[in-house]
């Protein structure tokens, strides 16, 4: 068994696709029209056959309070691995991305937390 798909709940798929590709640097993998929304996934260019990230619509009534509560407490529900957290922090800050936690070394891992503009906080992590 392996993980081939995980999701982030986004409030607008077009905006999410733009942020996750143009800002974060992922690439679109699949886009299938499905009624009001689309089956829309991105992958890392470093691992195009690896785990897909579904940009999942957040329209379900339970989702909004859940996302708001997480953001209020600063909790990143999703984490991505990067080579160099500080370099990504500089690069993304330069693109106008808002960080709620600056790079912080905690034992063997360095992390930072940013706002994905789609209603989520995302952690980036670097193992040392």
């Amino acid at each position: 068994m392996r993980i081939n798909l995980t999701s982030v709940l986004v409030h607008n798929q077009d905006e999410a696709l733009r942020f996750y590709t143009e800002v974060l640097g992922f690439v679109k993998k699949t886009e299938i029209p499905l009624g009001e929304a689309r089956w829309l996934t991105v992958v890392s260019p470093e691992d195009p056959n690896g785990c897909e990230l579904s940009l999942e619509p957040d329209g379900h009534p339970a989702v909004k309070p859940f996302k708001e509560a997480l953001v209020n407490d600063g909790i990143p529900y999703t984490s991505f691995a990067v080579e160099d957290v500080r370099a990504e922090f500089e690069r993304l800050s330069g693109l106008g991305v808002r960080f709620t936690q600056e790079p912080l070394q905690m034992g063997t891992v360095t992390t930072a937390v940013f706002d994905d503009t789609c209603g989520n906080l995302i952690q980036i992590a670097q193992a040392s």
Partner: protein
Amino acid sequence: MGDTAEPEPERDTAGGGAVFKALADPTRRKILDELTERDGQTLFEICSRLTMKYQLGSSRQAISQHLEILIEAGLVTSHREGRYKFHHIDTSPLERLTDRWRNRETKEN
């Protein structure tokens, strides 16, 4: 602030009791240490620091309650920025506490 069971002299209305209570707990002192290192942290960052740096196994709920006590004592303030909430250290209650004894002579002159 300052709601303590025992009657206190007039000068204690600044909430000295609440400050001593807040400072009596080692976890709360660590929270203040971490806010001194970097001011303006989310609850998540405070919890991460306590877990990773001190191996404190407290739940988020527990840390949230510690923060409430620090806020009541005036040692921590929280401010909302859009959808985020950040916590800041405020050391002014400590100055009032130490002044109470240290500056007595000058006050009486």
